[in-house]
């Protein structure tokens, strides 16, 4: 074999190898392995209240929609997906879902709503709650509260500072009641979830009309 033939053979072999590589890479349509993308917790899929079919009571009145619009826009909450979870003062307590948030709104008997919003993880741990104090008729320490609870929790315990305990039934993922200063919460497979609630203070009673 002459040097020229050897060179040609090497060139041919090189081309074959290059071709094989090219074919191999061209045929390899399987995408490289990627770590799974974490999916942000979604309120609608996380809580039963937002999965149940809407009924006639869940249609939010236009006035309520207008009053809640600013907060809903700020928090990214979806008023169309809201559910009426309890009755109060002739209106409804609302649970409102967002892409990764839940909002609770309690009607103020005088005007508007008390509202609070939290992300899904916070809502699952019982730390989404909203209170109203200083309402007409409330006495020192009185508080109206709505607390959001995860699926499977059907009651919360309100423990007053006076030592008296009371069980409050939760429905549609919300416990709603008039209680007194103390703690409120529940226990589940992830631990004991209690929050401190302070009722109507003396300062408000002295300034109420």
């Amino acid at each position, binding site marked *: 074999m002459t040097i020229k033939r050897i060179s040609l053979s090497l060139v041919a072999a090189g081309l074959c190898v290059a071709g094989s590589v090219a074919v191999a890479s061209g045929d390899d349509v399987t995408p490289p392995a990627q770590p799974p993308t974490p999916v942000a917790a979604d309120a609608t899929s996380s809580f039963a209240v937002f999965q149940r079919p809407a009924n006639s009571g869940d249609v939010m009145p236009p*006035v309520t929609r*207008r*009053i*809640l619009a*600013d*907060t809903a826009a*700020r928090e990214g909450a979806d008023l169309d997906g809201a559910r009426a979870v309890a009755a109060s003062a002739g209106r409804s307590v609302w649970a409102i879902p967002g892409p990764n948030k839940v909002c609770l*709104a*309690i009607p*103020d*008997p*005088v*005007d*508007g*709503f*008390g*509202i*609070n*919003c939290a992300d899904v993880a916070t809502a699952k741990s019982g*730390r989404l*709650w*909203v*209170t*109203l*104090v*200083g*309402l007409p008729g*409330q006495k020192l320490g009185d*508080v*109206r509260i709505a607390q959001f609870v995860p699926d499977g929790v059907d009651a919360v315990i309100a423990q007053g500072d006076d030592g008296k305990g009371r069980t409050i039934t939760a429905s549609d993922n919300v416990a709603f009641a008039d209680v007194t200063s103390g703690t409120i919460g529940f226990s589940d497979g992830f631990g004991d979830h209690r*929050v*401190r*609630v*302070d009722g109507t*203070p*003396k*300062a*408000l009673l002295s*300034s*109420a*009309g």
Partner: protein
Amino acid sequence: MIDHIRAVVVRVRRRAGVGLMLAGTTAALAATAGSATAATHDYCNWDGSYNGTPAWTICFQSGDNWLTNNHAWLPYLPVTPTIYCGARLSGVDYGGWSGGNPSCDHAYGGGNLLKAGEYVSVAATTHGSITY
């Protein structure tokens, strides 16, 4: 050559003028849209800075407005106090005070001239904003 340069300068000026006109029109439209909708303002500390709020002491806005929303929060977390949002009408509590942690929110119908306020159950740094 000088005539050519002058022509180019005139074209550039015309284009810049049209651009400025469009920008001005856009700004005017934005301003019109803004005035037609409610705006949000800081209160308590109107310059947007945070407020050191003692426990159970209401920090009020300085004036009265056709309030539609009162939103206050505890900027440094985690903190334990409950923060409350409410309002007064002619010096008297108007409805209830809405409590939460780490923020509070009380929405209103906007039909009354109200003075918004916020307070905390434990002394804390707070920040309030009102929409009217």
